[in-house]
């Protein structure tokens, strides 16, 4: 799989951003992009700008909150952190993702019967 298809991306991107914030703590958009890059290697080819649409979706759902702070190049940057509702959502999503992944995995491992 060279590239993740964009339809798959939206839901998974939100999930990945949530996971990143949960794992590392408050991050700004650039930091999140780096983290995603680091996790996925070069297999995730996405415009880094897309991160901001995910951030807005998550914020509108009340799963993350934002606060202004200073970035490493000493500019003002918005730092996002996961909220309690966000953690609950992450747990739900993780569970259902694992379930789906498990089912699909088992299906794909089926060998043709003779």
């Amino acid at each position, binding site marked *: 799989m060279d590239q993740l298809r964009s339809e798959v991306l939206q839901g998974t991107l939100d999930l990945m951003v949530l996971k990143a914030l949960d794992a590392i703590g408050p991050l*700004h*958009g*650039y930091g999140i*992009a780096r983290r995603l890059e680091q996790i996925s290697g070069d297999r995730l080819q996405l*415009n*880094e*700008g*897309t991160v*901001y*649409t995910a951030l*807005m*979706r998550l*914020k*509108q*759902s*009340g799963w993350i909150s934002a606060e*202004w702070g200073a*970035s*490493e*190049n000493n*500019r*003002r*940057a*918005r730092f996002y952190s996961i909220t309690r509702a966000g953690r609950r959502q992450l747990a739900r999503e993780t569970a259902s993702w694992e379930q789906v992944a498990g089912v699909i995995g088992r299906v794909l491992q089926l060998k043709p019967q003779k």
Partner: protein
Amino acid sequence: MPVTLRRLWSRLRAYVTRSSGDDGLDEEIGGHLQLLQQRFEAQGMTPDEARRAARGSFGGVEQLREDLREQQSFPWFDELRQDVRYACRTIVRAPIVSLAIIVTFALGIGANAAIFSLVNSVLLSPLPYPSPDRIIVIEPFWKNRTNSDGFRTSSAPDFYDWRAQSHVFDAMAYHGGGEFRVIAEGEPTFGSVQLATPDFFRVFGATPAAGRFWTEQENRASVAVVSHAWAVAHFGEPSKAIGRHIRTARSLEIVGVAPVGFNYPGATDIWFPAGVVPEAPRGGHNYLVVGRLKPGVRLEQARAEMRGIGDRLEQQYPDSNRDKTVVLTPVREKLTGGASTTLWLLLGTVAGVLLIACVNVANLQLVRAAARGREMAVRSAMGAGPGRVIRQVLTESLLLGGIGCLVGLAAGWLTLKAFVAIAPADIPRLNEVHIDQRVLLFTLGLTALSSLLFGLGPARRVARLDLSGALKQQPGKGVRGGVGSRARSLLVMAEVALSFALLVAAGLLLRSFVELNRVDLGFSTERVLATTTSVPAAAPEQQRQATMFYRDLIDRVRQMPGVRQAAGVRSMPFVDGRSSSGYTIDGNPTPPPGARPIADNQVVTPGFFDTVNMRIRRGRDFSAGDEYGRPQVAIVNERLARDAFGTGDAIGRTIRTGMTRESSNGMQIVGVIADARDESPDAAANPAIYLPYLQHPGPGSRLELLAHTAIAPDTLAVSIREAARALNPEVPVRFSTMDEVFAKRLAYPRFRAVLVAGFALLAVALALVGIYGVLSYLVSERTPEIGVRMALGALRRDIFSDVISGSMRLVAGGLLAGLLGTIAVVRVLQTVLYGVSPRDPLTIAAVAGLFVATAFLASSIPALRASRVDPLVALRQD
């Protein structure tokens, strides 16, 4: 807060505060780009290369901004604004069609708003008492007789047994009364007076506005409670009424004032203790009983218990209670029973009108949609999906509907006042009628529903348009081949069917109103002036005075110039509340207990029959000699004579009723009078016994004085009032003519007939406009074809008859459908019709004829236009 809601909320917030919505976004993106650039520089790129690479891996900044904005806003809201703006332009661009739509719609909505206001206030709004649903009317029900729909009286002993033996009521009380003379502050007036048992106010959960209600111990006391309005009218404010004295038959001290608006039953001014009636006969039904159910007791439960008590009483007192049981009815049902049929009927009628209005508007929209086929096709071709096009058309419909709704509400508000003015005065709570929240909600709902109804059809049609065909259409002309011409024909037929059904209903109601007016009543109401007076009398001496007052007054009135004859009668014809009782005939086999036949009792003075032109069939009228102390006499009507004596002679036989003194030898029948429908013109005469006033002065001592005049009856009012005042200054006097009283009796049929007829005419007018509109459009659409036909030799006559026959086919189809529908539905009218069958062929034929004639006229204008098409002009159009 659910996530979807929260998302919506934050979007909304962002949308409203749009200016500050992307605050800091530039800064955020800028920072991000800078960090990326630094990273690429650190990997060894030149600043220029690094900047480009940073932009590359970030993606389009403008695109992102756009995405974010969209995510923060409501695209459909923007589109809606577009749609509305566009719809406004469309509406203004075709002002005549738009106006037609708005007016049509306003008529439909207005009629519905007005009638629903009536229904709402009279039938749906809760009564102004605490837990009004628990207030129950308790009354006897006769298993072997027809029970009137009105309030039925109970006997005092039955009441005491019901109260003592039942466990489901918190309180039970009886009351009874009517209009009597009341002297307050020395001024004699008519007051609506009720006697009531102490629990009466508890039944209604009323608390006094001032003072107190009387107690169980005061059941014989000379105290009274007055209504709030009466207290204010006579004493300025409620508290000032306390301690004052008023005089009815005796002097009463006001101890309490009822709460604002409390005036049960009817418009009562004064309540006073009923006294104790221990020895009253069980067969004498004089009181109305009300009770308040205990909380948690279901009506069914209470009914079962009371039925049991009724059965026990029936066995215990077979003489008086045979075939008599007890029924419970919520007071609201009882109050609105008479009005509800009429109001639901009217609501059904205006619903029909609205439906026709919708059909008409749908038709107009279809015509317009067809004319706009090209425009819509262009929009589709440019990428507007079918949903978007439908939404556009629906927005237009809703907008037109909204404007129509506003106009309609205003019109409804105005007509409501007119309806109330001509409505029967005894519709309960008529003075409370107003447009409230529920009416507004109803109207809005109706508007939305009908806008969708008349908008969706045309909208879907537009969305299904064949693009290439429509694009080839020339600007300003309709789509050839008639978009929805079949739909339009069906709509016209539906309109015809609906308005035909309404017109038939109106015709039937009008005819039965005419029939009611033509009924041979058996007496004459013409030029009869009724003088209502009241001389309260409690003691025998007072009764004697009352008797003399009436004797003298009648004598004086008789001598007045212009008076042909004058007499007195206890119960005014056409007014409820006459007394009736069982009777026996000496010499006839004694009927089994409880099976005694019942007859109305009417007390009259000599000359009454002559005054109202009732024909004496046999024997004689009463004379001045038939007075107290002389042998008792009676006159019976033909119905009773037939029932009791068959073909035998009634004269000279002896009859006994509840009004016969026990000591006497019964009453000798001295005359037989023709049957008179003096209760209601649509009810056949009951068996009736007439008794001479001088032998039955009665406890109420109230007599209606009727004068048959040679001149206009109301010109006598002044002199009669003076004569009454001269005889007794404490007697209040009021006048009405018998014709007025009769008209009041027919108030419901008149109200129904007038309103339904009005609405039906409205419906027909709408339908005709619909026919005319559709035909005009079809003609203009067919102009080229007509041109060709004429060029090929068709005559003007042919074209004319072609158009007319096309239209008449539609009308005929509609009439047929309407006829079938009418026959199926019109049975609901049965109960309100008199003297005419719901399938009266004459009415149906007349209405159909009228329809065909007017439809012919409506279609002849476009047909004429078609026949005048100039082939040269028409052919050159293409």
